[in-house]
Each structure stands twice: as structure tokens, then as C-alpha cells.
């Protein structure tokens, strides 16, 4: 089966005055259709760069990203993105935010409302459909952003540390909810985080990256069944994988040059 997302030797350089800096070096990755991959790594490992290139918000210096076999050449509604800062439109209500992408697609008002309500209910914001974002908590804002991304029916969801700004408790709740949503509305998900627990809990595979230059370090499969539960989170299998990822992320000295 053809992979959903292909990163083919993606390199990205940034020019800083007269010297250039390699944010991402020949990044190679295949993501299968319907798969949930998480990407972890120290800051500066290029994980956000990779995601932005897949979203089409950033152009690669070399190589290309293909989604469904087609090279990415700019943002498109088939690739939804969720940001750490929520990025809701504060002057619109929850429902209007969720309808934003549908409106751009030119969807008629009735269908728009129906779809928006479906996804608002799916993320559990049914009672807040007419509320303005300023009245919502951080977790609710992010749920609204997730509903907004889902509403335009993307086949790929790109998530850039979506739960990074939330407290630990809310984060765990949203992880469960995200997995639940993902099971009901299956999409290919690429999820960036710097939280090792989160990476293991959510993923089919954890992609560990290394910094300077940002590159792929290791791919660690997570062979734990879904639905993931508290029991799994506390199991010894989980801990073993978590430790493996932890080591891959935090003990990168000495392995820095092995590929060069």
C-alpha cells in the first residue's frame, strides 16, 4: 500500500545573515494511511520545521514531501493543522470558527452548520457552540481548534505540540479524547511533542529526532493495543518503551556524528 505521507530527503536551511543553518538534514520518513506517529526530540531538532514543510507553510531547500503521491506545494484543506497557540479567531464564536474552513470551501449554510455541530459535539463542546473563545479554558480552545481542523475533512492531521501549553491533568484528558476522536474519525496523524510520555501513549510509532543538524535519529514502534487506557499507561511494557524513547531523546551526545 502506498504510504500517506512521504518525506523524501527533506533538507531545510535558514539564512542567518551571511551564514546558513541547517534546520533539517535529509529527513526521510514514510507514514502509513491511518497511522498515528509522534515526533519527539530536543529543541532545534527540526521537528516543527518538518511539520511546517508537510503543511506547505514552509518550502524545503531540497527534497520533497508527498501526500498521497502528490508533492506538497503550499497549504491545502486536505492537510489540517493544529497549533500550540490554538490560533482560533477570537472575534468568531466556537461554531463560526469551526465553520470557517467550510465557508471558504463554499459549503451551503445548512450543511455547514450540520457538519460544524457534529464536530463540536464530537470534541464535547456542544454547550459552548455560541461562546466566544475568550470565555473558554485552554483545553476547550484546543478542542475547538481540533474540531475546526476536522471540519474541512482533511485526510492528514498535523499537530504542532498541541497540548504543550496545557496543565498536566487537562493534557491527559485531551490525549484520551484525541485518541477517541481518532478511532472514530480515522485520519493519518503526525503529532509533535517534547513530552516522552505523551509520545508513547498516543503513537503507533515514535519518531525520535536529533539536533544540530535536525535529523531523524530512530524510529521506535509502540506495540501496545488501542484503546490506550490508564492501565496501559502504568504497565511495564509502556514503561519499557518509554525508557527506550527517553534514552534516545536525552542521550544524544556521542551519537551526534555517527552518520557523517
Amino acid at each position, binding site marked *: 500500500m502506498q504510504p500517506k505521507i512521504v518525506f523524501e530527503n527533506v533538507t531545510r536551511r535558514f539564512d542567518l545573515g551571511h551564514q546558513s543553518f541547517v534546520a533539517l538534514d535529509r529527513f526521510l520518513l514514510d507514514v502509513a494511511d491511518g497511522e498515528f506517529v509522534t515526533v519527539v526530540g530536543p529543541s532545534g531538532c527540526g521537528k516543527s520545521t518538518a511539520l511546517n514543510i508537510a*503543511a*506547505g*507553510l514552509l518550502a524545503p531547500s531540497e527534497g520533497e514531501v508527498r501526500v498521497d503521491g502528490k508533492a506538497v506545494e503550499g*497549504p*491545502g*484543506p486536505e*492537510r*489540517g*493543522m493544529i*497549533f500550540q*497557540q490554538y*490560533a*482560533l*479567531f*477570537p*472575534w*468568531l464564536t466556537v461554531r463560526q470558527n469551526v465553520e*470557517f*474552513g467550510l465557508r*471558504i*470551501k463554499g459549503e451551503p449554510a445548512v450543511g455547514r452548520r450540520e457538519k460544524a455541530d457534529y464536530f463540536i459535539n464530537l470534541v464535547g463542546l456542544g454547550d459552548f457552540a455560541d461562546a*466566544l*473563545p*475568550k470565555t473558554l479554558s485552554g483545553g476547550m480552545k484546543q478542542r475547538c*481548534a481540533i474540531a*475546526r*481542523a476536522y471540519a*474541512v475533512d482533511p485526510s492528514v492531521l498535523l499537530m504542532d505540540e498541541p497540548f504543550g501549553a496545557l496543565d498536566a491533568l487537562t493534557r491527559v484528558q485531551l490525549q484520551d479524547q484525541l485518541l477517541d476522536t481518532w478511532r472514530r474519525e480515522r485520519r493519518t496523524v503526525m503529532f509533535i511533542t517534547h513530552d516522552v510520555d505523551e509520545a508513547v501513549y498516543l503513537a503507533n510509532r515514535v519518531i525520535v529526532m536529533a539536533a544540530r543538524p535536525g535529523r531523524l535519529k530512530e524510529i521506535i514502534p509502540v506495540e501496545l493495543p488501542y484503546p490506550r487506557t490508564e492501565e496501559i499507561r502504568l504497565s511495564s511494557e509502556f514503561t519499557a518503551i518509554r525508557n527506550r524513547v527517553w534514552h534516545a531523546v536525552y542521550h544524544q551526545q556521542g551519537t551526534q556524528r555517527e552518520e557523517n
Partner: protein
Amino acid sequence: MVATYQGVISVDKTMINAARVLGAKDLTIFLRVIIPASTPFILVGVRIGLGSAWATLVAAELIAAQTGLGYRMQQAQLYYDLATIFVSLITIGLLGLAMDRLLLAVERRLTVWQERV
């Protein structure tokens, strides 16, 4: 003008990216994201502009007009008509205040969505 410019350049880049990944093109982003996001700044500009426009108008009338409150005051001064001077002064003040309050009300209505700390 300056306030509007400041408003436009301070529109959150992530918000624009969010619109782009939802399929918005430049014109849509301008109309549906940049304009609403800068509305508070635009209104501040309008308020400051209104204040100075009003002051300038009255001053201009004092110097070189054939009608208007400023002109009337100038005439009254000529004839030492204190009552007219004071009535004009108060009217100028009240009209200025009324316009400002009206704008403030409009601003409140248009920016209810803003998070105020």
C-alpha cells in the same frame, strides 16, 4: 493611520497560518482575518483622529471661516458678547465629548471578543 499599520503588522502570524491551512487565499485572509484582527487598532486610530480633527476644525473656524461655532465665537469676542462665547465653548466641548462617547460605544460593540485583563 499609524495605529492601523501597527494593528496590521501585529496580527498573529499563527492565526494567518491557521487560515491558510483551512484553505484561505490572500484576499480571504485580508478580509476575514487581518481586518477583524486589526479592528481594535483601527478604532483607536479613528478616536485619536476624531479628537484632533474636531480641535483643528474649531481652530480653523476661529481664524478663517464665515460660519460655524469658531466663527461665532470670534464675532462674539469682537462685540464682547460673553454669553455667546461661553455657550459656544460649552457646545464645542459637549459635541466633542458626544462624538467620542459614540465612537467608544461602537468600539465596545465591535471588540467584545477581545480578551481584557
